[in-house]
């Protein structure tokens, strides 16, 4: 059995190449000067610099959290670069101006920035190290009043929206990594869907880390105005390197009354090699605020990163609002993941659903950490949590840390949990029907993840399927 598991999980990481571009990098190290330098490079208004500086001060007074169930060598925040951008990228450049080397990089990653060749129905913002290199389909979106652009661009073109919503869901003081991000974030995506508009395209951001010894600190802000709806996808990859690289992002979602936001992630950062050398440290804060009758749905397929620390959450502020979290987290070799969600029920009749599927192989350690909190005024709040773990092999681990706080007696909470092992009998049964072990494991894993995969938009379901080396066709839906 071990041979077959190896072949499944030790598939060569396809995205580990480096693009040879000349970069504008600021010196390593992190001081107030660094923060000012980044802000200046982005030609930011004073108010944003002030906000960054407050975040930086706050960060200096904070300590790195130690409660996650992960072990890693301490991060030296002075030993890396906080801004690196390809020299060829000009501020506010058009797609025609993108460096062909960078276009090729995205082609290789399966993302076409050429609007004629693009996946129909998807608009892409491409982030390369610290900057956005281009956003497709902007004209088409503009017709509907949808704003989809890099964060840097939004700061200059739509300052009133940024000022109103930046930090409104994840304040800069929220946690150590959010404070760090708030101080040094370099780019990211901004989305605004006007009142009553159903976004005609899927929006997607593709994050690529390329430069060495550089952290990526991006910030995404999505605002769906009253009655608006949007589906947003996020993908990410990085070169193979023997050193660890830090990725500390913040994502904020605002769903105003009657709005719907669906946010999907296929996270495939470099995970390190089979001995646990290298890989991305992925420390991410993702949170949405749901107003009356609105709905925020997070779907994530986490297969990459050496360390994942991530809890996409929903503050169910308004009455009748809904929060959902669908997650598949895979750890293999020496990967560690501590991931889950928080559902904070504030309004009446708020509803949340949590479906978490953890798969552990090799020496991987997978922890689900989830909080369901019902505040005193949340009459009729409901939560359903299902948390399943699958173990492949004998040296991996699965852990569950549920936190439940209920301050309203009319709330209904249901929790189900299971742990299973891919059994020799299951594999043998498949083999007896002519499937090889790799195919058998893929099939069994796909079945296990089915409830989450069916939440993914079509294009991503396919990517997720390839990622797990599995064939989903027909076994889903």
């Amino acid at each position: 059995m071990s041979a077959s598991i190896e072949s499944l999980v030790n598939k060569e990481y396809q995205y580990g190449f480096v693009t040879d571009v000349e970069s504008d990098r600021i010196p390593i190290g992190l001081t107030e000067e660094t923060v000012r330098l980044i802000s200046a490079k982005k030609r930011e208004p004073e108010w944003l610099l002030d906000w960054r500086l407050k975040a930086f001060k706050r960060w200096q007074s904070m300590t790195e959290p130690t409660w996650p169930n992960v072990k890693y060598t301490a991060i030296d925040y002075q030993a890396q670069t906080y801004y690196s951008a390809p020299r060829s990228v000009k501020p506010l450049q058009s797609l025609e101006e993108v460096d062909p080397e960078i276009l090729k990089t995205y082609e290789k990653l399966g993302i076409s920035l050429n609007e004629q060749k693009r996946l129909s129905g998807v608009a892409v913002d491409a982030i390369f190290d610290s900057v956005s290199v281009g956003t497709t389909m902007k004209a088409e979106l503009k017709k509907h009043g949808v704003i989809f652009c890099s964060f840097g661009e939004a700061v200059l073109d739509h300052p009133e929206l940024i000022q109103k919503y930046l930090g409104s869901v994840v304040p800069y003081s929220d946690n150590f990594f959010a404070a760090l991000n708030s101080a040094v974030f370099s780019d990211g995506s901004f989305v605004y869907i006007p009142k009553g508009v159903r976004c005609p395209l899927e929006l997607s951001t593709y994050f690529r880390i390329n430069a060495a010894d550089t952290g990526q600190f991006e910030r995404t802000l999505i605002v769906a105005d009253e009655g608006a709806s949007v589906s947003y996808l996020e993908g990410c990859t990085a070169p193979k390197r023997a050193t660890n690289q830090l990725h500390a992002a913040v994502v904020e979602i605002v769903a105003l009354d009657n709005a719907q936001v669906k946010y999907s992630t296929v996270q495939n950062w470099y995970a390190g090699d089979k001995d646990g050398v290298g890989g991305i440290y992925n420390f991410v804060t993702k949170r949405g605020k749901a107003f009356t009758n609105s709905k925020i749905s997070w779907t994530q397929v986490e297969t990459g990163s050496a360390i994942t620390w991530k809890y996409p959450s929903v503050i169910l502020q308004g009455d009748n609002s809904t929060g959902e979290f669908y997650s598949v987290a895979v750890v293999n070799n020496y990967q560690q993941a501590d991931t889950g969600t928080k559902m904070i029920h504030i309004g009446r009749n708020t509803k949340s659903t949590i479906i978490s599927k953890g798969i552990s192989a090799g020496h991987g350690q997978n922890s689900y950490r989830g909080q369901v909190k019902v505040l005193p005024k949340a009459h009729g709040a409901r939560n359903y949590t299902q948390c399943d773990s699958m173990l492949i092999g004998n040296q991996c681990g699965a852990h569950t840390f549920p936190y439940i706080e209920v301050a309203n007696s009319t709330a209904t909470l249901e929790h189900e949990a299971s742990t299973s092992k891919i059994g020799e009998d299951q594999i043998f049964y498949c083999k007896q029907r002519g499937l090889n072990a790799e195919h058998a494991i893929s099939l069994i894993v796909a079945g296990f993840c089915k409830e989450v995969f069916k939440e993914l938009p079509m294009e991503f379901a396919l990517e997720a399927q390839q990622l797990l080396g599995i064939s989903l066709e027909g076994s889903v839906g």
Partner: protein
Amino acid sequence: MLKIDNLTANVADKQILKGISLAVNPGEVHAIMGPNGSGKSTLAQVIAGHPGYEVTGGTVTFEGQDLLDMDAEVRAQAGIFLAFQYPVEIPGVSNAYFLRAAYNEIRKARGEEEVDPMEFLDVMTEKLKIVEMTEEMLQRSVNAGFSGGEKKRNEILQMAVLEPTLAILDETDSGLDIDALRIVAEGVNKLKRPDRSTIVVTHYQRLLNYIVPDYVHVLAQGRIIRSGGKELALELEERGYDWLLDTAGASA
């Protein structure tokens, strides 16, 4: 077709099969009977290639090839099918998907083209009739939440789809009511051809009223202690196994 010679096998370091010899020719039906724990399932699993059973001696050839040298999936692709005594559940994977995946693997091994989901549906429409099952069955997860009888019928459905040259039915009759038993047995009979052979492992004579064996073997304590024609099954039905065990004990 299948030739087993002096086969011995261990499970968890305990010897279970203590020298089995058996020859099955094309078109033949062999019944293997015997008390609980005598090694019938072990024999079936060893032929199918379960890695948990350790072959310690003897040879098994299938159509002239050394079977013991082949991986389980290769044996399946070569035409060996085992209807499990305890079919395994695979939650979240639809029966239709699983069956098509298996069907295509077997076709590939035979040098035939794979079929797409639409073509496969046509194949299934025919096969479902054999076991009197409905299409609804195809959408359910493999064996998950199936009743005992449904699981057994599902095994025969798989057999009907994969069309093996050697089918081994391990207590496919146990847990079936009389109607289900008839459906399963008729299914097996419909699949009979002069070039296909069947090994039926069973406790009871009643299945053999439907699937009439050419030979009956009695397995006890890891050995075949008696072989005969179909009338041996009737005799066992009447007299039980004890008289055979006594003679076997005396002759040992």
